[in-house]
């Protein structure tokens, strides 16, 4: 795929919006992300309202360990960069490069997920569970929904890699890859807010 010349030079610069279906898909996905923003905003609001209701359990100051969270943040934010790089490779029709960057993205996402699971297990051990208090419920609902999004993203991108290995970079696969990349950036942005409003604010406020 990478060494094509004739057919690919006729193709437009942005494969993801080269067809009408692709244009629809990209616009629709932006709108979907708008809906997702409202969804996370509601979870943030709930968390901010309930974050001091820790009852007998540990408070945010006692619980959070910024070092671990900073590492997880670094992993996830870097994965956004690698996701961009894979999209650049996609529009260069460089399949090998694209898949390499996608696999690195997935690896970073998996690393983040492992750290998050470890963190949750640690909290449960400390007596901070989903059922222990309203703070526990709202914390796991917000951070857990984000984690579920990361998990879904990893599965999704994996299936896209399989598809692209079978079919190559075409005007049908490109929009799928592009919107999965949008999705990945979105969950990164949400994490930036979680890092600020949950962890940093939890340490100071």
């Amino acid at each position, binding site marked *: 795929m990478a060494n094509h010349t004739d057919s690919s030079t006729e193709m437009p610069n942005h494969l993801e919006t080269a067809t*009408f279906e692709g*244009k*629809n898909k990209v*616009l*629709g996905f932006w*709108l*979907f992300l*708008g*809906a*997702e923003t*409202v*969804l996370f905003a*509601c*979870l943030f*609001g*709930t968390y901010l*309202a*309930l974050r001091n*209701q*820790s*009852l007998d359990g540990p408070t945010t100051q006692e619980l959070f360990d910024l070092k671990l969270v900073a590492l997880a943040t670094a992993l996830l934010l870097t994965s956004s960069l690698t996701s961009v790089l894979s999209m650049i490779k996609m529009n260069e029709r460089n399949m090998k490069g694209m898949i390499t960057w996608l696999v690195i993205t997935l690896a970073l996402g998996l690393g983040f997920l492992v750290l998050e699971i470890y963190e949750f297990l640690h909290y449960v051990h400390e007596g901070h569970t*989903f*059922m222990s*208090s*309203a*703070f*526990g*419920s*709202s914390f*796991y*609902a917000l951070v857990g929904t984000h984690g579920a999004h990361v998990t879904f993203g990893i599965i999704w991108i994996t*299936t*896209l890699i399989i*598809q692209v290995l079978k*079919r190559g970079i075409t005007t*049908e696969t490109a929009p*799928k890859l592009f919107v999965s990349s949008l999705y990945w950036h979105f969950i990164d942005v949400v994490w930036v807010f979680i890092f600020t409003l949950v962890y940093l604010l939890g340490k100071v406020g």
Partner: protein
Amino acid sequence: MATLIVLLVLVLFLAAIFTGGYNRQFLERMRNSRTWDWLTTVDHKKIGILYLMGGLLFFLIGGLEAIFMRLQLFAPGNDLFVGRTFNELLTMHGTTMIFLAAMPLIFAIMNAVVPLQIGARDVAFPFLNALGFWLFFFGGVLLNLSWIFGGAPDAGWTSYTGLALNQYSPGPGVDFYVLGLQIAGIGTLIGGLNFIVTIINMRAPGMTFLRLPLFTWTAFVTSGLVLFAFPAFTVALLLLMFDRLFGSNFFDHAMGGSTVIWEHLFWIFGHPEVYIVILPAFGIMSDVISTFSKKRLFGYNSMVFATVLIGFLGFMVWVHHMFTVGLGAISNSVFAVATMAIAVPTGIKVFNWLFTMWGGEIQFKTPMLWAVGFIPTFVIGGMTGVMLALPPADYQYQDSYFVVAHFHYVLVGGTVFGLFAGIYYWWPKMFGKMLNESLGKWHFWTFLIGFHLTFFPQHFLGLFGMPRRVFTYQTNVGLERLNEISTIGVAGMLIGTIFFLVNIIYTLRKGPKAEADAWGLGRTLEWSIPSPPPEYNFAQTPLVRGFDALWVEKEAGNKTMTPAEPLGSIHMPSPSYIPIMMSLGFFIAGFGFIVRGIPAAVFGLIIVFAALFLRSFDYDRGYHVEPEDPEKGGKE
């Protein structure tokens, strides 16, 4: 466990049948059957009809629940439906009418009309369109199964958590509410998203935003409201599900939770929802009044502006449902002012309709009757709305029948009248048959009189102190006579609805065939193509040369639209069984969660994910139709 086994056996049977292991010929026969065609269709016109049938079914169920309630309230101390049964009736009446009748009927008309009005061959995502319908349908069925499986939800349609948590509402009722509405809500969200992309990307050449017919504009704004309001409800339902099923503490005060969070989330969704169901009715009114007055809509630009402004303000007023919670004078004042501000764009609309009729050649066909009946009825509801927007006064009105009267004037007098106008107006386009005019007029007059007889006295019942949602009242406190009148009025609405059903059945059998321009007055693109339209809608995409595109051509002396492209083969999307399969998966998962059968729930979710993967790996490119020979092309 027994449920699980039954489900498993059912699925094995279905798997055997669908893979052809049972009988190959049967599979062939089924693929070519009309039922299979309707179950797998991705055609927006057919999905519109499915939404219409589904919405009407639930409209009848919700109406029956209302009749039961009014019968109970006919006399003081009545014991027909008391206590929990009455609570279930009032909860299911509200929930059914809002989510399973009004919303799908709106989506029915949007599906049937919006692509035609913008000159498109289909919606942007035909597959998601089908998925949206089936999710709504299975969600609605799941919610209504509660009547059979352990009792319906009984915490009111608002399901405040002071009533809806396990300790206050034991039994599965509220679980059915949570999961049924969650599934239906996902469907609605998908539908809204689809229409935004459709209206932005699929307009015919020349169809600029300020040439869109007003119904399309309201559909556009409503879809935006759906997109940004429903996620709040998704979260609210998710949190309530966690509290009821998995022992979390979002709303449990003893564990640090707060029931006010539910109220905020619910009304952040719930108030835009009010505009979601009324804006399309405004759009229908605008198209109908303009058509039957034979005049261009008065103040088109201000109508568009008012629509967008109402949509925007709709997100700024949710606290007016919570004035008595005690959020403080400042916040109550801000939200009161915002609420009263909405009266301004709404007033703009009412005057524009009146000025459109002014000096027009008015023809009082049935849709026009509904539109004209709508205006005073809706204005009364709007006036009581402004009264309720005053926080000090609201402390008196709240939770009384005054509120019930108010929202029935806007929801029935606004939305339902609008929907009836739209159904009569576009029925010929959807089905190719004209509805009977005299039956339609009987429908209108009985329903209108019955409606006012039912709900006008309720203003006074409320002012006299009758609380809403209470199943009885005492003698000798001045409530008997008005309650009697109110119940008698229901008969009018019932008779009207029967006229409507008779009209549908009679017309589908014997009605005259509808012309392309069924009313002879068509102004917009949908009237330029045959009734019902061929599956590709427009043989050639039309060129739009002004607002009221067809009228512009008529005035220029043309019989049809000017085509914007040569005749050629038309690409169509393939039908798909995945939407119904995925919705069935959600249904099984929801039912599993409700009966606390986690294996069944997991099994349902596996079906959902399997459907997602099937869809993702499916590279079906659709097929082509030759428009010259529509009969032959349609079959292949």
